[in-house]
């Protein structure tokens, strides 16, 4: 059955391999050129968008036709009347597609580890662009192990949609917004709290080095002694009016700090420090792997109930 799984999925696997190989060539070339001369940095800014989309496209391209592709010429009727139970048949196909998806995304991440480093060094000598601080979403989303998690999520999403809709094209098309929504929801609402964030407080509001090298979540003036706003208030809540009357006349950092102390407030920056990188990577990968398992369960049920 291993050969069958490989042979039936060969077109998608080769296409995915080709796409990743082309990207790898491009990344290697831009990485080498940028490393050689940081002036080439601007070439690479546009690529980053593609890098965020790639795990989704790769996973969906392998997943959407896995079951739905059989419906086109009704080959599931051939496959399911051979001497192999259809759940076993499905298991082999899922294993083949899943391993390819995971393998390709792992290879791509390995390359991106190097590439983001080169490009962020270039960025530090230029202004703006890709910062390369690994805990910040721009680099976090394309390095470490989360890429494999995203790809498996997209793969499972593609198979489940395909098994339910039974049309590979529609499964792929519908998978893109669902994948994007899933990624954004987790990144904006869940990732910041996956590991308890750190706080840095100062009277002047000048961030520490740890904050610069971390992922800033929230910042604002809060009452002295607190590391977060008073319950019921937001980070944007105004300090006492006396603080502004004071700072209007302040002419130095020290004076600003004095004003804050008088008003019993201080600046707090809530952030995920660089040291939380692997904890966050592990937790987020686990989330997407968990969703992938649920979606694969949907695929199995849909295939078992498929009456053609």
């Amino acid at each position, binding site marked *: 059955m291993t050969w069958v799984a490989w042979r039936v999925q060969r077109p998608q696997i080769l296409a995915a391999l080709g796409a990743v190989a082309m990207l790898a060539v491009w990344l290697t070339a831009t990485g080498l050129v940028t490393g050689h001369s940081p002036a080439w940095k601007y070439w690479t800014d546009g690529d980053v968008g593609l890098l965020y989309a790639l795990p989704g496209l790769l996973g969906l391209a392998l997943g959407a036709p896995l079951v739905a592709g059989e419906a086109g010429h009704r080959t599931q009727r051939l496959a399911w009347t051979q001497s192999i*139970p259809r759940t076993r048949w499905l298991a082999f196909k899922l294993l083949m597609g899943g391993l390819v998806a995971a393998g390709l995304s792992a290879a791509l991440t390995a390359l991106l580890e190097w590439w983001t480093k080169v490009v962020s060094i270039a960025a530090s000598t230029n202004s703006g662009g890709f910062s390369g601080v690994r805990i910040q979403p721009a680099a976090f989303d394309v390095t470490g192990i989360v890429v494999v998690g995203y790809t498996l999520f997209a793969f499972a999403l593609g198979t489940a949609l395909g098994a339910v809709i039974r049309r590979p094209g529609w499964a792929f098309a519908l998978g893109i917004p669902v994948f994007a929504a899933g990624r954004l929801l987790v990144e904006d609402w869940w990732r910041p709290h996956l590991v308890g964030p750190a706080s840095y407080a100062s009277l002047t509001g000048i961030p520490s080095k740890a904050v610069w090298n971390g992922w800033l979540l929230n910042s604002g003036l809060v009452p002295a002694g607190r590391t977060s706003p008073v319950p019921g208030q937001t980070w944007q809540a105004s300090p006492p009016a006396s603080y502004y009357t004071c700072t209007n006349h302040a002419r130095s950092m020290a004076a600003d700090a004095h004003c804050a102390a008088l008003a019993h407030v201080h600046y707090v920056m809530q952030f995920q420090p660089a040291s939380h990188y692997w904890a966050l990577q592990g937790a987020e990968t686990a989330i997407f792997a968990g969703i992938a398992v649920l979606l694969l369960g949907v695929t199995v049920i849909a295939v078992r109930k498929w009456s053609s």
Partner: protein
Amino acid sequence: MSTPAAAVETLGLGKRYGHAWALQDCSFRLPPGRIAGLVGPNGAGKSTLLRMLAGISTPSAGEMSVLGWPAGTQSTETLACIGYLDQDRPLYRGFRVSEMLRFGRELNPRWDDTRARRHLDDLAISPRSRIGRLSGGQQAQVALTMCLAKRPELLLLDEPVAALDPLARDDLMHILLQSVVDDGATVLLSSHAVADLATVCDYVIILSASRVQLAGDLDHVLASHRMLLGPAAAAPPVPADGAVVSSVTTGRQTTMIVRAGQLIAGQPASAQPPAGLPIADPAWEVVEPTLDEIVLAYLRHRPQDLPQRPGRWARGAAPVEAR
């Protein structure tokens, strides 16, 4: 595997798509070792029945057992015993013929590769050819080869002769007969070419209007029906009850197909002589009909027998006498 009493047995089997029943109240028993012909017009539910027996379609009602196993059994053992040829002849179009055979070899423990290769060789189908480049007839032959090389105990063939030329039809019938003799296989094949069936089948199931109209041994079916030819003006020599399968008047002649077993009221069918019906009226001639004529009669039977069904087939309508 112990030999079951029936290769296929269904009881009240039905399949509904939305509100419409594609097959309803289907009950019959196919003894092992037979070549059974499933006849009926397009849309009678032949393919639906075969798909359910092959395990790729789930029945909406009723029960069935295939080679002694209940419906929906999905194990390597049960699947290996059933060979199914779909009406669409699904094959992987990007595969080469040799890859299609490897597919069969990898997935079937009883696969007979020599037989498959020899069969395709005889048909001059190269193993290097792409499936998608083959003609419709050649694809049908590859699909059929896949089905036969599996060496199943039960062959479920949906319109196996549809895309074949007359010579290939003849060859296929020969192969089917041989696999029944050699392997003790049971064959259930659907067709609307009744002439093909009469030469090879020894069992017949007539399906019409989503229901089984008749199922039985070919010999018994032939022996228990009579064709009556008489003047259009004359009163029918039999009571107009269920005994009359069909009655057609053309010009001055009436042709009736009747069930012999029901001609004499109050006596069981087995007690009645199939030949020499007690028809006293000399105006009527009694002839033994061909399978073709019987099948046609049952297909015509439908309108009078099943009263008005407004738009859809109502569930639980009076069943037609089967068997």
